[in-house]
């Protein structure tokens, strides 16, 4: 089963609006009918995670976390998708948490291993970016300061 897990790259490909809408309508219809099947919930949740919209991804993670807590047989699988979701949200800490949960039980899982690499890469890049932002801010501040000083001198 875990071999079927999609690689993180697949999560980057969004569904079309129509497809997502179908999934969404199916999900809400089942809510109205009083019984939500795990599959519909997952479909919509995964569809949401595949979008590029943070709010929708968050919503998707919420749905998957619901499945995670309610349906033990799907827990391992879900932990991976939740990790992907957090990865897409750039919440690398939680992504790592869920991915490691899966790796704990299935150390040989290729998808989870590649996700771990991606997460680590993301963390380091964030570090550089943070550094860059700090540096940039410092530069801007310097320029502003310099111009201010110049003006006062004039």
């Amino acid at each position: 089963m875990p071999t079927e897990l999609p690689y993180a790259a697949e999560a980057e490909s969004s569904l079309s609006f129509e497809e997502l809408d179908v999934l969404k309508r199916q999900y809400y219809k089942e809510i109205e009918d009083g019984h939500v099947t795990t599959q519909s919930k997952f479909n919509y949740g995964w569809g949401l995670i595949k979008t590029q919209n943070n709010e929708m991804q968050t919503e998707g993670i919420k749905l998957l976390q619901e499945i995670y807590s309610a349906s033990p047989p799907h827990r391992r699988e879900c932990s991976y998708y939740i990790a992907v979701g957090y990865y897409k949200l750039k919440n690398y800490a939680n992504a790592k948490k869920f991915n490691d949960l899966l790796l704990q039980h299935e150390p040989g899982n290729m998808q989870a291993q590649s996700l771990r690499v991606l997460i680590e890469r993301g963390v380091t890049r964030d570090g550089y970016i943070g550094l860059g932002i700090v540096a940039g801010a410092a530069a801007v501040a310097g320029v502003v300061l310099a111009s201010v000083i110049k003006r006062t001198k004039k």
Partner: protein
Amino acid sequence: MASDSHKGRHRPIKEALEPISNPYMSTLNDTLHIAKEVVMGSLQSDYRRSESVRILSDLAPSLMQPRIMAAAQNSSSARGVVTAPPPRPNALLRLPTSFPAGLTGIPPRATSNSLAILEAVDQLTQMSLDRSIGQEEHPSLIRGFRATVPSSELPKQRRRLIRGGMVDADLGLGSEKMGLKRLGDRARGLLTDGADDTPEPSRRRRRRHRRGGSFGRQSLKWEDLVKQADEIALDKENLHVRTSLIHSEINEVSAKIDTLEEIRRRLEASLLRLQEERLELDDELEGVQELLSDPNVMRDAKTISAIEHQENGTPVRSSRRRKGPAFLPSEHDELPPNVAFMTMRAHEGSVTALDFNEPYGLLVTGGDDGKAKVWDLCDGTQIGELRGHFGAVKALQVEDTLCLTGGTDGNIKLWDLRIVEEYEERRQKFANDVPASPLKPIKEIDAEDEGEFWDEGPSQFSITSNLTTLSQVEDEGPCVRTLEGHSKAVTALYYEDRVLVTGSQDKTIRVWSVETGRCEMTMDLLSVMSNPPDLQQVQTKPGLYRSSTSFGANHYDDLLPSPSLIGLSGASLLSAATSQTFSVPTPVYSDGSWRQYEEFVSGLQSWGYALVSGSGDGAVRMWDLRSGQAHRTLLAHSAPVTCLQFDENHIISGSLDRTMRIWDIRTGTVIETHRYEFPVTSLGFDSRRVLACTGEPGIELYNRTSHKHQRLTTNGHTSPAERLRFSDRYLVSGDRGGSIKAWAL
């Protein structure tokens, strides 16, 4: 056009962004969406167009052909030719489009959802990922996703269209479909080279075929057919996945239904418990109200007996009818329920009668060995013996410190239990000191003692003392009065509110006034039986008598001696009942033993003017004590009734026919019949439960609320239990081996 208004609105932004987007995009032909998306992806609200464009540009550069782009852009707005940006090396290593979350720890926009999911993380990570063994394998969610996502249907639709030979009139629609299919394929990770390489030529070819009309079918290429076959195989596989998905969902629903049913069962059980609790509270309230209406609530410890107490005119309920919680020490609550916690070796031979005044109070037992003993229930020690009857005590009742016993000698004796211990000590002492003539000194001291006793007592006790001279001569012990009148053994006795009712083997029921010691009424069962006073008997179906067998083949001319099918025919039972000496063998007990059953009247209870009796002819009779007439006869038992009790609504009777029946008093019908393997010899009930001795060591406990049967066996009797009496959660039972057990319920 929507895109125009977009342009207009975003003009300044676009201009501002142009220098940034320039390096990314070689051609700036209506690239607003792309620019906007790349820079402010996370803030993008109108995600759909940007989405499709972005994916395509990010992940599938090979697909970046203008027509497909246009299709993916959706038909509405961006019809123009969009040139794709140059492919970037790794979509996942794009510049972050939002402020990096790694720095802040939380996503850039903290909505309630994002907070909620983060909050749940810790809890979720605590959950076990262990697979429960034995659980059938579900199709994985992603497999289900691929099988159920809408685009999985597209190839099928397309095939249908082709087969139908329909002309794809709208090129735009067609190509849009193609785009969707492609998207779907990619969503399923199915980037088959065939679909990748030459999507356009094949489509064009197909269109040409369709234009060709009648030649369409033949000119379908072999490769197309192979592809279609592949698609069909894939579809079939998807269908299989969806089937198993639905199966697993059905299984899940059934599991949920099972769980819900279990929950429902538990809820119903707790409802029953609440019901029981309500009944208990009702009883408690009744008890408290009774006490409230009693002016003697501040009971003086010196008042000597229940007899005196009743002189105040307040009716005091018999302890046997007392409802509500009995006073139980707190230690009692700690005892495990339904376990016998005390055992007393009381008699040689069977226990024939027992009663106690209150839990952890005084217990009096009568046995086949002809002895009547008094016990302290606190420590299970014998306090003394009641000496006076010739023969065994067959019926007794303890009321506070007053004890009433009926013996096989036909006499009824009243005892003051408070002086039993003292008397026993004196007796012991004088027996040791003056073995030559023990009687005289006892007499002297007893006279002294008696004097004190009467001083405290009310005036009418002097009369009583005259009446009881005979018993005093015989034994100057704790016996305070003897009532004589029955010509044969007294087998049942019920005392309440100064009135004593006794039933005897001489087939009469007598009503006594305890104050005067006179017999006030005699009811002859024999005459009642020979002239049925009401139509009740006629109404009862004769079929209710089990006529197949008899109590013993040796006794009746019955050819079915099987001990497991013992019952009396109506006629033989009647003949036995009306014969000079009533005597039938009991069915065998669980240990194979049996005895000659001679108690003609053995169930008796009165309440005000109502009296209910159970007798050897198997009848339960309801009497009016004012007229002395049996106004109703309830017939259902096919063997002598051995015990009964009633309350406002029900009579419960047990019989040698091995049944216990619950009657509705108003209609006079049996509403419940409980059959047992062995004869029912004793029972008691309150609003919540029925306890019965059913000829087995285990005591039958029937829960009236939940209708569940239970056997009390833990540390229980080793020979069949014969008699029991209980109060609230305190039970005392005696068995055929002469042992007494005290139970916590």
